[in-house]
C-alpha cells in the first residue's frame, strides 16, 4: 500500500499488510508530530500538503529501489495530509522480510528517501501564533 491519506493512520493495518508466511520480522516507523521544532520553538501543530499522485508514485519507486538494494521484502507507506496536532502520526512505513536485517535497512532507507524526494510539504504552526513552511535539510533540489 502506497497512499496519501486524509485521516488518522492505522499503523497496525499497515503492518498487517506487509506480512506473508515467509516473514520473520516486521518493522514499522511512525513519524509523530513533536512539541518543538528543530530550532526548538514550541509547536502546536503541522499542516501537510502533497502532490498526491506524484507522492504515491514516489513511495512505490523508493520501495522498488529498497528491494533492489537490500533484498526481497514487502513495503507499505502512508503519509497523512491536512492539519495534525502534537502526538499524531504524520507518516508510517512498514516493512516485512524473512529476517530483521533487511527489514531494518529497507525501513530506514524508505523514510530517508521519502523525506529527501517525495513531493510533500509541511507548515509548522508555533505557539506564538505564526507559521512557517519547513523543508527537510537533505531535500532534493
Amino acid at each position, binding site marked *: 500500500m502506497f497512499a496519501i491519506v486524509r485521516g488518522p493512520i492505522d499503523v497496525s493495518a499497515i503492518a498487517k499488510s506487509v506480512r506473508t508466511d515467509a516473514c520473520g520480522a516486521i518493522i514499522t516507523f511512525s513519524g509523530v508530530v513533536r512539541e518543538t521544532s528543530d530550532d526548538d520553538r514550541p509547536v502546536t501543530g503541522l499542516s501537510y500538503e*502533497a*502532490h498526491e499522485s506524484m507522492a504515491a508514485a514516489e513511495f512505490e519507486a523508493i520501495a522498488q529501489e529498497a528491494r533492489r538494494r537490500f533484498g526481497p521484502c514487502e513495503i507499505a507507506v502512508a503519509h497523512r495530509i491536512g492539519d495534525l496536532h502534537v502526538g499524531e502520526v504524520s*507518516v508510517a512505513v512498514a516493512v516485512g522480510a524473512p529476517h530483521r536485517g533487511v527489514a531494518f535497512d529497507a525501513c530506514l532507507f524508505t523514510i530517508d528517501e521519502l*523525506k529527501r524526494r517525495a513531493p*510533500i510539504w509541511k507548515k509548522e504552526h508555533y505557539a506564538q501564533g505564526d507559521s512557517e*513552511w519547513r523543508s527537510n535539510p537533505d531535500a532534493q*533540489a
Partner: protein
Amino acid sequence: MLPFARVRELLGPPREVELPGGATVGALWDDLAKTCEGLRQLAQSTRIALNGRVARREEALQDGDEVALLPPAGGG
C-alpha cells in the same frame, strides 16, 4: 498550473494559464516570475513537474498539460 506550499501562497490556487504555441516549461516559469518577486527568489529551489514527472526547462508544453511547481520536500 499547480503550485504547492510556499509557491501556492505566492501564486494562489491552481489555475489555467494561456501561453503562445510552442512555449516551454521555462517560458511558463518566466511568465509567472515576471510579476512575482517572491517566486524569482525560489528559482533555484523549485522543481517543475510536467504531467507528474520532473521536467527540464526546455521541454515543450502541450494544451492541457499539468505543470506542478514543487518547493523543496518537507514530508515525513
